């Protein structure tokens, strides 16, 4: 008798409705991946009806906080699987925080693979695009996501960096390994840029890596005050940046 993991068939079915999956990645922690993911979700919602968000930071999920949700108020809703948590009319979210509230979950490699599989197998999405917030680095979580998502979806990556020299060097390092894996990288998005010099550094790194420069999100003081509905206010202050970024993503995910 041959052994079969029945979750794979569910994952294929659940993911088949997405136009594409977009992974938000950075080799370096603390560059604002989660914040950038939340902003990207709102930007993508200009074009798509519903954006499905998956927080794959399993040990310390925080995307729900940036989106203005409280883990203790999130409830598991069953519907031949689980429905993602409604953030607003355009965004829905699946996160391990739904199952562990504010506790942490210490996991080893095989457990990480299992959690990613289980979340993808059990979640009944309703969105058009899957946007994935990933933990820093390039290890078990990312490798499992690449494996599972690429079976059914076109998978793209957006790299996030701050203008610090360590973050930019890390971007160069991860880009070279991702390129050898034939990963489709939409481009590099800067975050926490305070002036033109910062933007120029991010732009130069994108050029050096042969990637699209997607722009820079400026440094925002007291950013916690904007979590939740305040994210929209940030986008309003960014002028043409959100629509230019959306056009870039559309262009690069088309082929």
């Amino acid at each position: 008798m041959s052994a079969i993991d029945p979750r794979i068939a569910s994952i294929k079915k659940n993911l088949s409705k997405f136009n594409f999956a977009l992974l938000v990645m950075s080799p370096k922690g603390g560059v604002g991946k989660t914040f950038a993911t939340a902003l990207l979700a709102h930007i993508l919602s200009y074009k798509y009806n519903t954006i499905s968000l998956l927080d794959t930071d399993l040990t310390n999920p925080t995307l729900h906080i940036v989106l203005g949700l409280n883990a203790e108020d999130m409830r598991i809703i069953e519907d031949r699987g689980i429905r993602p948590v409604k953030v607003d009319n355009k965004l829905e979210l699946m996160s391990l925080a739904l199952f562990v509230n504010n506790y942490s979950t210490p996991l080893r490699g095989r457990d990480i693979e299992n959690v990613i599989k289980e979340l993808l197998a059990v979640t009944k999405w309703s969105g058009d695009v899957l946007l994935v917030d990933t933990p820093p680095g390039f290890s078990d979580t990312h490798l499992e996501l690449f494996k599972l998502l690429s079976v059914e979806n076109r998978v793209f990556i957006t790299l996030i960096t701050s203008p610090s020299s360590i973050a930019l060097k890390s971007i160069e390092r991860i880009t070279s390994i991702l390129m050898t894996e034939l990963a489709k990288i939409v481009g590099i998005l800067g975050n926490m840029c305070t002036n033109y010099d910062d933007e120029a550094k991010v732009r130069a790194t994108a050029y050096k890596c042969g990637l699209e420069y997607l722009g820079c999100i400026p440094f925002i003081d007291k950013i916690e005050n904007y979590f939740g509905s305040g994210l929209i206010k940030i986008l309003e202050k960014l002028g043409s940046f959100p629509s230019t970024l959306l056009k870039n993503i559309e262009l690069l995910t088309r082929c």
Partner: protein
Amino acid sequence: MHEWALAEAIILSVVEEAKKSGKNVFNVEVIVGELQSVDLEVFKFALNELKTLAEQEQGVLIKSLKISRERAKFRCNRCGFEWELSNEKLSEDAKEAVHFVPEVIHTYLQCPRCKSHDFEIVSGRGVYMRVS
């Protein structure tokens, strides 16, 4: 019900196997891990309903369907202690969370001897299957 989702995954997998192998008659064994607290009555009912649909709509016949349970056992990665789920008492909230994502047991359980959260789920994790 999650049991319906699990049953659907089993039948979908058999239908996929039929497409891959060109066979249309199967013996299926489903192993249900204790950790996932599957309601076996609901699960069996869902499997039988979906099995009939697969036969009628896809021409895939499941000749025999055996369901067996596997006890959940753990081994501490720090001190090597081994123990079983049956020795533990979980809250209803924890049981529900573990039902959907068994690995969150690492949040709710510690090694009874050294109190570490770093343990291995040796058996009885979730649902898997064998086909022939």
